[in-house]
Structure formats: C-alpha cells, structure tokens
C-alpha cells in the first residue's frame, strides 16, 4: 500500500485504501435499483496511428515510434487514418447503429503529461455512429436470457502515451516523486463505445455488464479490427454505476470505475460498487460523483480525485481536420460484407457440435468459445476439445487466476495432445503432465513428451511382466479378487502404475489382470 500522508498533505494521498463498508448483496437488491452504464475503449489493430504514419506495434523500445505529430511538436498536423474510419463504421454497423452522413472530430481540452497536445482529438456531439443496440445472452440455470443493451454512440479518438511513476511504493501515482512518459502509444486509434443507461437489471447487473463486454469483445475480434486483449489494454472498460431507491426515482449520482482489466473484474466491480454505494446511502451518506480505480488485488475500488465540479473540456470542432462524410454506397458495401456476427456463430457452432444449451452455457461461461473452435479446427473432436478446455485447462486457469486465453497453451497444442491420447500414445495422466510442461515453457507437446520420455507402456508383454510382479508381491489381495472382490484389483493396478511410473495403460492392466486370474470384471 502507498505511504499514508495526512489529509492536508499536498502530495494528495486521500487516505482511501480500498476498504469500505459494504452492504450485504441481498440487502442492496432489496432496497435499491441499480443503473449501469458502460464505456468500452477498443484499441484498433491498424498498422499505423490515428493521425500519423507511426507504427503501432506493441512492446517497442520507448519513444521509438513517435513523430512531430504524435509527439505534438509545434507546427505538426494530423491526417486521418482511412482504415480507422472504416473500422469505426464497421463496428457501428455491427452494433446496429446509424452511421453519420457527416461528422467531425472535436478537441477535448485538458492538461495531462501523457497527452502531448494537452487536448485529445475525439468526437463530441457528432459521433460517427449512434443509436444502436447489442443483444447479450446471460447464461442461467434455466437457459440463456437475452438483454438488449442500447448503444448511445461509438466514436473515434486517439490514445494517450504511457507514464510510469517513480518513487512511490506501489508504482502508482500517489506518493510518486516523478513520472517517466513514453509516447509510443500516443495517437493509436481508439473507438469508444458508450451504452445508454441500462435500467431494470436488478441482481443481474454484474453478469449483464460482464456479458456485454464479452460480447463486444467477441464482436470486435470477429470483425478483425482489434485483438481486444483486456490484459494488454487493447480493450478497456469503464463502469458507471448509480443506485436509486426505486425505478420511478430520478437517477442517482454515479461513480465511474476505471482500470477494470478483465471480464471477471467487470462483474466484480459492478457488484462492489453496488454494495459500497448501498452502504453509504443506508448510512445517510451521499455518493460522490467521481472517478474510482479498480484494484484487482484487493477486489475493491478506491477514490481518485473527486470531480464534484465536472471537468470543463471546452469542446470545439477540430480545425486541423475536415469533416468525415462517408459515402452511403461505401457504407452499404461495408454492411453487406460484415462477417458472421458472434451470436449467429454461436448458434451455428452449437449445432455443429451437437451441444446442449447447458453445455454451450458452460462454454460461454468459461469464455472458451474461440479456443475450443480453434482446437477443433486443428483436428480435435468437439467433445474432446470441450472436455479439455472446460476441464483440466479451466481448472489450471482458475488456479492461476488468469483468463483461458492468457493461460499459456495454444489450441494447436491442445489438439496435438488430444491426438496423442487418441492414438494411445499418452494416457490422460500423461497428457496432464504434458500440459504442465507446455505451461512451464518447455516447448510444444512433442518436445515435452520426448524430454520427459513419456511413453505409454501398452504392449501386453511388458504389462504381463509387471502384473506378474505385482501379483507376486500381493498374494492376499489376489485372494480377495479370486474370492469375488473385483474392486480390489485397483491395488494391483496401482502397483503396476507405480512400477511403470504412471505410463502403463491402466485399463489394459486391469483387463489383463482379471483375465490372468480368470475373473470376470
């Protein structure tokens, strides 16, 4: 935790360390009606930035991808990236929005070191897309329920640079002595999607929020306009939440929570804010309109600077750029060429896989659709792919507290492991060891198999020999088996497995054993 400074310390620690009274969940639902608003920033995967030809590749050395324009040197000017505009239109169409026939960029004026012009070129009252909707399915025990989330707008803007804060305890702003800024990210194209206030969700609010972000992510990936990795920041979500006593009341004061970096956190942040605000209101307090920061480690939010007075951004149309007036014929061609949308794709895959609603729900809950599909595309059967991703791999992901896609094993590798098992070259147990090896960075499956000399002992001759040894060592168990306690064969099988370091085919061992002893099993 950062150093605690006193309340009058101009270095500004607000004494908010993330532990707040929380109203019990059931009580929140009883007494309040939540209203949710989501703002999602999608970082586009164009080759170049929004307003200049600098590359956008992730991970470059600091300040090696800048130019007079994105560094905001005096005299430099912006020129709009055509592909960014096309991506914005396609996303707007996929969100069932109206595409503006004429719109402009606007300057949003405020001072901040990671924003070199001290204004951001964005869109204000003339977004390129507006008035749309996105249906999201929230799985439940009784089957999926569909919510139609209304989209206020989707607009184009540019990303800021990145600062790292030096001198404080946590690497965050509070308590830092100075900051270091890298402008490689400054100017990368963003599309901001803003929902209308989402009312009437009640207890489903956290899950609906999560489902919306997940669906938007899937949409953006299917359009090929962004890789939308929340853990890398190419998809960012801000959660707005307010409470009111009843749906007839006017909207309450909302908080805005940033730094929500995973789907899981979206749901958690909604739930946390509902409980925090509920406790505050029940105690007779007042919710402050402010920006809050989500903390993955503590599972709570802390207050940023309070914005009691709304920031005055002094928007005006960007004079260095000319209006964007998309040709209607072009827009129509883009619409017709949209790829299969995620919801349609899910229905199709469910049919292909002959999966039940419940099975599909499990797939979606685990956010495993793409990886399963990719595994099948690499040759695995739908059932095997589902079994592995929803079983062992999901377990490992949970253990390590990461998303499936960030686990560290790719569908091609999973398909290979499944194939090895199908061919009888690996047992399930061995397969799990191979997974472990891949995750530990020991290479692809075949390499791990070779390194660990994993080989199913499957030939009857070796097995028979091993069985004979185990039988000789356990005469009383053998008697039990002969007497009819077939289950006791497990002891012999276990001994054989131990002797072969787990590489024997357990089922075959049992078969041979019982055959040898002349017992039916």
């Amino acid at each position, binding site marked *: 935790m950062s150093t605690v400074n006193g309340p009058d310390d101009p270095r500004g620690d607000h004494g908010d360390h993330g532990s707040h009274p929380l109203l019990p969940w059931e009580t929140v639902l009883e007494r309040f009606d939540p209203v949710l608003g989501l703002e999602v920033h999608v970082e586009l995967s*164009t*080759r170049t930035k929004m307003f*200049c030809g600098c*590359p956008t590749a992730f991970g470059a050395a600091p300040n090696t991808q800048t130019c007079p324009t994105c560094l905001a040197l005096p005299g430099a000017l912006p020129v709009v990236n055509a592909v960014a505009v096309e991506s914005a239109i396609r996303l707007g169409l996929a969100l069932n929005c109206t595409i503006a026939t004429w719109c*402009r960029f606007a300057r949003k004026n405020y001072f*901040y070191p990671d924003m070199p012009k*001290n204004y951001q070129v964005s869109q204000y009252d003339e977004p390129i897309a507006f008035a749309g909707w996105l249906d999201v399915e929230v799985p439940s025990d009784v089957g999926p329920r569909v919510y139609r989330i209304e989209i206020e707008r989707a607009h184009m803007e540019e990303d800021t640079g990145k600062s790292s804060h030096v001198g404080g305890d946590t690497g965050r702003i509070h308590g830092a002595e100075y900051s270091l800024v890298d402008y490689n990210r400054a100017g990368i194209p963003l599309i901001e999607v803003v929902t209308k206030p989402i009312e009437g969700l009640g207890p489903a609010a956290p899950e609906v929020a999560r489902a919306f972000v997940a669906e938007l992510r899937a949409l953006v990936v299917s359009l090929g306009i962004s890789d939308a990795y929340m853990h890398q920041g190419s998809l960012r979500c801000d959660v707005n939440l307010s409470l009111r006593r009843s749906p007839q009341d006017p909207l309450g004061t909302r908080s805005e929570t940033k730094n929500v970096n995973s789907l899981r956190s979206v749901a958690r942040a909604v739930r946390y804010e509902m409980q925090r605000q509920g406790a505050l209101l029940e105690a007779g307090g007042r919710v402050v309109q402010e920006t809050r920061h989500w903390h993955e480690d503590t599972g709570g939010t802390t207050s940023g600077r309070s914005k009691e007075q709304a920031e005055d951004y002094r928007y005006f149309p960007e004079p260095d750029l000319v209006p*964007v007036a998309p040709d209607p014929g072009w827009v129509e061609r883009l619409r017709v060429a949209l790829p299969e949308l995620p919801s349609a794709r899910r229905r199709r895959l469910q049919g292909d896989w002959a999966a039940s609603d419940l099975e599909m729900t499990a797939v979606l809950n685990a956010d495993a659709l793409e990886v399963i599909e990719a595994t099948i595309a690499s040759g695995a059967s739908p059932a095997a792919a589902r079994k592995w991703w929803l079983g062992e791999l999901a377990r490992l992901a949970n253990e390590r507290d990461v998303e499936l896609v960030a686990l560290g094993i790719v569908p091609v590798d999973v398909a290979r492991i499944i194939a090895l098992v199908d061919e009888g070259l690996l047992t399930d147990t061995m397969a799990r060891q191979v997974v472990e090896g891949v995750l530990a960075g020991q290479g692809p499956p075949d390499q791990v198999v070779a390194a660990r000399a994993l080989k199913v002992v499957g030939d009857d001759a070796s097995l028979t020999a091993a069985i004979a040894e185990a039988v000789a060592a356990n005469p009383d168990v053998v008697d039990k088996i002969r007497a009819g306690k077939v289950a006791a064969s497990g002891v012999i099988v276990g001994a054989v497995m131990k002797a072969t370091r787990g590489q024997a085919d357990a089922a075959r061992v049992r078969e041979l054993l019982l055959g040898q002893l002349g017992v039916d099993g």
Partner: protein
Amino acid sequence: MPAISPDEVAHLAVLARLDLTQEHLGRLAAELEVILASVATVSQVATEQIPPTSHPLPLTNVFRADEVRPSLTVEQALMAAPAVEADRFRVPRILDEDS
C-alpha cells in the same frame, strides 16, 4: 453582459495552467471585460438560422493510407526535452489521477 468575477478569472487561469499573480489576475479581469463587451456585438447578427462555419473551405474526407512512415529516432524525439531518464520524458509528479 455577464461581469467576470475574480473567482471566475482565477478558475480560467487554472483551466489554462497559468500561474498568475493576484495582481495580474485583477488586471486581466478588467481587460477581459472590456474586450468581451465589444465582442458581444457578434450575437446581434448571429441568429438561429445562420449555420456556423468552422472551415473556410468545403473540404471533406481527407484521409491517408494505413502505411508506416519513418518515425523520429529516439534521440530526435528527446533532443529538446528539459529532462530525460531511461529514454523517456521525465516529468514532475502528477497529482491529478486521470486516464
């Protein structure tokens, strides 16, 4: 015509990141009012039906292809910087959490 209060002038100076003396703020309040009084004439002719012009020329749809162009070297990018550390711009500590 709204009179500009000293508080308003001080607030504008904060918005504009100008650390001005009280005396300077006081002078500015008077100067801003005089200028604003004369420009209020604008609203006399600028009626509802007149569309605003933000651009002298009716250009639209000026785009560039999504193709990489040479960037500055890191030395060029940093050459005029008042303070540099680890190839980054070193700036004083930030109070106002944003982004």
